[in-house]
C-alpha cells in the first residue's frame, strides 16, 4: 500500500443566484447602513498613475438579451504592468491602485461601467510579454461556475498579435470575442454566453 496524496477536493461551485447583490453590492440593491460603500465600486483615485479609461461591459445570453442580474469582477495590473498582490515578485505596484473592481449589471439596461486605467504589459510564464489585458470573472443566476475570460484592447494590435494566450485560440475567427472596441476614452465589450459570437472562456 502506497502513501496517500492526502488531498482535499475544491468546494463545488453553486450559482450566485438572482440576489447576489445582497451579499456583494448591498448598497446597490438598497441595503444601506451595513457597509459604508460597496466593495470594488471605485478603482482609481486622483493619485492613481496611468491613462484613465472607461469600460462598458454587457453580458448577453443565448438570445442576445443582456443579463440584468449578473455581476462582473475585473482584475488587472497597474500602468507599469505590476499586480497589487503578494504574488507579485517583480516590484511594488502603484499603492493607489488595487487593480480589482466589482460592478453589477444595471437592472434596466444590463450595462456594467468601470472607471479604471489602462494596464501595462505582464510577462507570460516564459518571459515574453502578454498584451495589455484585464481579467473578467462573471457570475449570475444560471451560471453554475464563475466564468473566466479576458478583455484585450482594440488599439493594441501589435501587442495582441504576439500575445501567447490569444495565439492559442485555434479558431482564429473567435479571437475578436476577447477584444474590446475603443470609442474615445471608453472600451466597449460584449460578453456572449452562447451562440455564434460566444466569447472564449478560460479553464486556467
Amino acid at each position, binding site marked *: 500500500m502506497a502513501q496517500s496524496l492526502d488531498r*482535499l*477536493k*475544491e*468546494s*463545488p*461551485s*453553486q*450559482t*450566485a443566484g438572482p*440576489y*447576489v447583490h*445582497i*451579499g*456583494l453590492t*448591498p448598497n446597490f*440593491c*438598497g*441595503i444601506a*447602513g*451595513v*457597509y459604508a460603500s460597496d*466593495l470594488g465600486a471605485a478603482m482609481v483615485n486622483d493619485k492613481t498613475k496611468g491613462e484613465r479609461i472607461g469600460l462598458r461591459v454587457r453580458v448577453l445570453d443565448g*438570445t442576445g438579451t443582456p443579463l440584468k*442580474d449578473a455581476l462582473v469582477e475585473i*482584475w488587472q495590473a497597474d500602468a507599469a504592468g505590476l*499586480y*497589487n*498582490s*503578494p*504574488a*507579485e*515578485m517583480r516590484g511594488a505596484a502603484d*499603492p493607489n491602485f*488595487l487593480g480589482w473592481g466589482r460592478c453589477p449589471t444595471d437592472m434596466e439596461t444590463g450595462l456594467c461601467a468601470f472607471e479604471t486605467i489602462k494596464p501595462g504589459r*505582464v*510577462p*507570460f*510564464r*516564459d*518571459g515574453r510579454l502578454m498584451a495589455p*489585458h484585464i*481579467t473578467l470573472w462573471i457570475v*449570475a*443566476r*444560471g*451560471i*453554475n*461556475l*464563475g466564468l473566466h475570460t*479576458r478583455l484585450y484592447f482594440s488599439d493594441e494590435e501589435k501587442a495582441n498579435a504576439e500575445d501567447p*494566450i490569444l495565439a*492559442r485560440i485555434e479558431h482564429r475567427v*473567435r479571437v475578436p470575442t476577447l477584444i474590446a472596441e475603443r470609442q474615445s476614452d471608453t472600451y466597449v465589450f460584449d460578453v456572449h*454566453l*452562447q451562440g455564434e459570437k460566444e466569447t*472564449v*472562456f*478560460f*479553464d*486556467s
Partner: protein
Amino acid sequence: MPADPGSNLTPETGAFFQRDRTWHPPALTPNYKSSVLRSPQKALLSFDNTLSEIAGPVFGHAMLGELDADLIHNFARPGESAIGERIIVHGRVLDERGVGVPGVLIEFWQANAGGRYRHKKDGYLAPLDPNFGGCGRTITGEDGFYAFRTVKPGPYPWPNGPNDWRPAHIHFSVFGHGFAQRLITQMYFEGDPLIWKCPIVRGIADRAAIEALTALLDTQATIPMDALAYKFDIVLRGRRSSLFENRLEGN
C-alpha cells in the same frame, strides 16, 4: 487597498492545481432552467496559470466593521435583533493541500428566517424582517478560521419547475490568494430533505460533492442558552511549489 501592513505572510507564487470540472456542476444543467441560455457551449481555452491568474487582490482586516460578521444585529434597530433560530456558522478555509488559508475575504448572504430576501426581485409571501438585511463578511485568521452569527434562513419556493423549493442555504463568496481561486458557492444544512430535491444542488453529479457543501450541526460549538452552531469548511484550489519552475524558455 494594500495588504495588512503588519502581515508577515510568505507569499506563494506557484500556479494553482487544475480545476476538476467533473466535480463542479457543469455549465448546462437543464433542470435548472436559467442555465439553458446562460451556459457556454464551446470548449474552454485551457492553459497553465499566468501571473494574471496567480496574483489576486488582498483585503485587510481594517476594512471590516464591528458588526460585519453579525447578521443578527448589523441591520437591526438599536436594541433589537433579527427574528429566527440564532446560529453560529464557523469553519476553516483550506486549500486542496489541507493548508489553512489566512486573510481570505468571505462574503455571505441569505434569506431571512421566513425564506424571504431583502431584494426588490423577491416577491415571496413571507414577510421581510425589519431587523434583517441578510449580508455579512469576514476575513479568515492565521489558520484559515472564520465565524459569523446569523439566523437560520428559511427554505423558499422559486420559479423553475411548478413546485420547486430551495433548501435552506447561505451563499458564500470567497477570495483566495490568487484570482484563479475565486469561488462562489452555497452552504446547506445537515438533514434538510429539500437538498436532494433541488435542481440547483442536483446539478452536482457526485453525492460526495453535495455532502461537501452540507454543514454539520456542531453541538460543541453551540453557545448554551444562546445559539446553535454549524461547522462549514471551504476548500479552495491548491497550488504548486514554485521552487522548480522554469522561469525562462529553454532553461
